[in-house]
C-alpha cells in the first residue's frame, strides 16, 4: 500500500487545520440560520408593537371650546356624560344608550364618543412608536407645516377601551369586543365538535383497529387531512354548512329568520372539521403513551376492553388529550382563510347573541384593517394582533401548565 499517499507531518497538520477552519465557518453558517429565525421573530413582534402606539395628528371639524370651557381630555366621566347629553340629539343619545348603557361606560369610552360624535375628529397622519420616541422633533415640524390645524397626540391604539368597544367604521373608535366574542364562540363550537369525534376516532385507531386495509386507509386519510390547505376547508364549509344545511345553520329550523347560513354555527363547524385531524393525531399520541402494562393489569382482573379504556387508558391519556385540544384551539383562533370563505361579516357592531348570529372574528378584523389604505387602520390592526397574540399565548401557556401539572407518573 506504499504508493497510496496521505498527507504526513507538516502537511498533515496544515491539512487538518484547513479542515477545522472549514468546519468552524460552516458552524457559523448553521448558527446564522437560527439567527435569521430569531431576528425574523423579533422583527415581527417589534413591527407589531411599533404600529400599536405612537403619535397621531388629529383635526377637529368642530372647535372643542364650543362644548366645554376646559380642554376635553381633562374632563372627568360625569362632565363628559353631561357634554354628550347636552349636545347629542335625544334620538342619537337613546340609540347609544341602547347599545350599551351610557352610565356604565368608562371615561375613555365617553371621551372617544365626544371626539367621534361632537368634535368629529379626523386623523391626518400617524407615526410609529420608534419614530415617536426618537424623531419627535421632526414629527412636530412636519405636522406643523402640513396640518397647521391638527393637534398632535400620543395615541395608545391598544387600550382597555379598544378591547371592550364594539366595531366602528372609524379607526379612532373601533374596538375588537365583537370580534373577540365571535372568535370565542366559533372556537367553542369547533372544539365541542372536534373533541368527542377526535377522541373517539383516536380510541378506535389505537385500541380497536386491526391492521387491515380499511384501518390503514383511515389513518393515511387522517394524516392527509392534516395537510389539506385551510382554504379548501373553507370551500367545503361554504358548500355544505352555509348552503346545503342552511336551514340548520341559519337557525331557521329553530325559528330564527333574520340570517342566512353565514353564521357562527357554519364557521364553527368548518373550524371543527379543520382541527379534527389535529385533535385525532394528538389524542393518538397521548393514548399511545399509556403503557401496555396498565391495560394488561386491567384485563388481568377481568375487565372488558371498554372498561379498560374508560377507567384506565383514558384517565391516563387525558392530560395529553387536553393539551392537544388546546393546541388545536389555538390553531382555530388564528385561522383566517376559511372564515373569509364561509363569510364572517366585516362590519358587525352587535355582539353575537348565539350560534346562529352573524359574526366577525379577530383574524378577520386584522385582515380587513391591514388591507385598508388609511394608516390609522394599520395601527388598529397592530393593536388587534397584540390582542390575538395574547389570546394565543394564554392558550399555549395553559397547555404547557397542564402538561407540567400532569407530568407522566410512569
Amino acid at each position: 500500500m506504499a504508493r497510496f499517499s496521505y498527507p504526513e507531518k507538516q502537511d498533515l497538520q496544515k491539512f487538518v487545520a484547513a479542515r477545522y477552519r472549514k468546519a468552524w465557518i460552516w458552524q457559523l453558517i448553521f448558527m446564522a440560520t437560527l439567527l435569521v429565525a430569531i431576528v425574523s421573530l423579533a422583527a415581527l413582534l417589534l413591527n407589531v408593537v411599533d404600529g400599536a402606539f405612537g403619535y397621531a395628528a388629529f383635526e377637529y371639524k368642530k372647535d372643542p371650546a364650543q362644548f366645554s370651557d376646559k380642554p376635553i381630555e381633562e374632563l372627568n366621566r360625569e362632565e363628559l356624560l353631561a357634554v354628550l347629553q347636552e349636545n347629542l340629539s335625544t334620538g342619537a343619545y337613546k340609540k347609544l344608550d341602547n347599545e350599551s348603557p351610557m352610565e356604565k361606560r368608562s371615561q375613555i369610552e365617553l371621551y372617544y364618543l365626544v371626539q367621534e360624535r361632537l368634535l368629529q375628529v379626523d386623523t391626518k397622519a400617524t407615526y410609529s412608536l420608534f419614530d415617536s420616541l426618537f424623531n419627535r422633533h421632526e414629527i412636530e415640524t412636519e405636522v406643523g407645516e402640513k396640518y397647521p390645524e391638527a393637534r398632535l397626540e400620543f395615541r395608545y391604539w391598544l387600550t382597555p377601551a379598544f378591547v371592550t368597544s364594539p366595531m366602528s367604521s372609524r379607526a379612532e373608535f373601533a374596538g375588537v369586543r365583537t370580534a373577540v366574542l365571535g372568535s370565542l364562540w366559533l372556537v367553542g363550537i369547533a372544539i365541542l365538535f372536534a373533541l368527542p369525534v377526535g377522541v373517539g376516532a383516536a380510541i378506535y385507531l389505537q385500541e380497536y383497529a386491526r391492521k387491515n386495509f380499511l384501518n390503514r386507509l383511515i389513518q393515511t386519510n387522517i394524516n392527509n387531512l392534516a395537510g389539506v390547505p385551510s382554504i379548501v376547508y373553507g370551500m367545503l364549509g361554504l358548500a355544505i354548512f352555509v348552503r346545503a344545511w342552511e336551514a340548520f345553520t341559519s337557525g331557521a329550523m329553530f325559528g330564527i329568520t333574520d340570517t342566512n347560513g353565514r353564521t357562527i354555527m357554519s364557521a364553527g363547524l368548518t373550524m371543527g372539521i379543520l382541527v379534527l385531524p389535529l385533535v385525532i393525531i394528538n389524542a393518538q399520541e397521548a393514548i399511545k403513551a399509556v403503557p401496555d402494562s396498565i391495560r394488561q393489569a386491567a384485563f388481568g382482573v377481568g375487565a372488558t376492553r371498554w372498561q379498560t379504556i374508560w377507567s384506565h387508558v383514558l384517565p391516563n391519556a387525558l392530560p395529553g388529550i387536553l393539551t392537544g385540544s388546546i393546541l388545536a384551539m389555538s390553531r382555530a383562533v388564528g385561522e383566517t382563510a376559511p372564515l373569509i370563505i364561509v363569510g364572517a361579516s366585516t362590519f358587525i357592531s352587535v355582539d353575537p347573541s348565539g350560534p346562529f348570529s352573524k359574526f366577525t372574528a379577530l383574524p378577520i378584523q386584522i385582515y380587513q384593517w391591514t388591507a385598508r389604505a388609511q394608516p390609522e387602520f394599520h395601527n388598529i390592526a397592530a393593536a388587534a394582533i397584540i390582542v390575538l397574540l395574547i389570546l394565543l399565548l394564554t392558550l399555549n401557556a395553559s397547555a404547557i401548565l397542564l402538561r407540567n401539572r400532569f407530568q407522566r407518573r410512569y
Partner: protein
Amino acid sequence: MQPEIPQYAIETRDLSIYYGPFEAVKNVDLKIEKQKITAIIGPSGCGKSTLLRAFNRMNDFVPTSRVDGEILMHGTNLYSKDIDPVEVRRKIGMVFQKPNPFPKSIYDNIAWGARINGFKGNMDELVEQSLRNAALWEEVKDKLKKSAYELSGGQQQRLCIARTIAIQPDIILMDEPASALDPISTLRIEELMQELKKNYTIIIVTHNMQQAARVSDYTAMMMLYEDTRSGTVIEFDDTKKIFTRPSDKRTEDYVTGRFG
C-alpha cells in the same frame, strides 16, 4: 540520557476512565505489541468496550467522560493537550460490533474516508487494493456502484474493515466484530485478521473465548471490582498461557466456564 524507544504500539499507564463520578475502568497497565493481535476478554459490563474506545478517543463524544493516566501510542500520549483527536482516529481505525457501512455505494464507502483525509493518488486502485486486502474484492468487483446495504452482514463487516485499512491506520480496534455474524462469516473475518496482522496491530474485544483463543497472540482478562463496580485488567499474558495455565484463579474460572 537515552530517549525512550517506543517499542509498543500502545502502552497504558495507570489508566482510569470516568463517566461523571463513576469510575468505569480503573488502573489499567497494558503494553500492546506491534503487529500482533491482542484480545480483551471478560464478562459483560466490565469495561472492555470503554477501554477500547479510549484508545481512539471515541469516548470524547460522551460529554461527561474523563481520562486519568496515560495512553501512549508509539510513545506519544494520546490525551495530552496538543493532540488532535481527529488525527488520532485517523491513525487508529475502528471496526464496530454491528456492521455500519454508510448508506452510499460500496465504492464510496471506501473512497469517502480517503477523500476527507486528503488522499492523493489513484482512487480506483486504492478501492481495489483495500477490498482485496479485506478479502471482498472477488465478491463485489462487479457491483461497486451498488449500495452497501445490498451486501450480506458478513460482507458489510468486511467492507467496514476495507474502508478502515484504506486510510492506512497503524492500529485497528475491533469491538466484537463478529458477534452479529453467522459462523461462516465469523470464520472469514478471523482468517482476515491473521492476514491483516502482517501490517497492522490489532486489538479485539470479544465475548467469545474460543475466538480469543483462536485468533489472538496476547490476551487481557478484565473483571469488575466487587465493591466499586469498576473494571480492571486482572491478567495480561500470552494467549496460550491465559487459556492453559492462568495465574489468576478468576481467569481460570472464567475461561473454563465456571464463572457465574
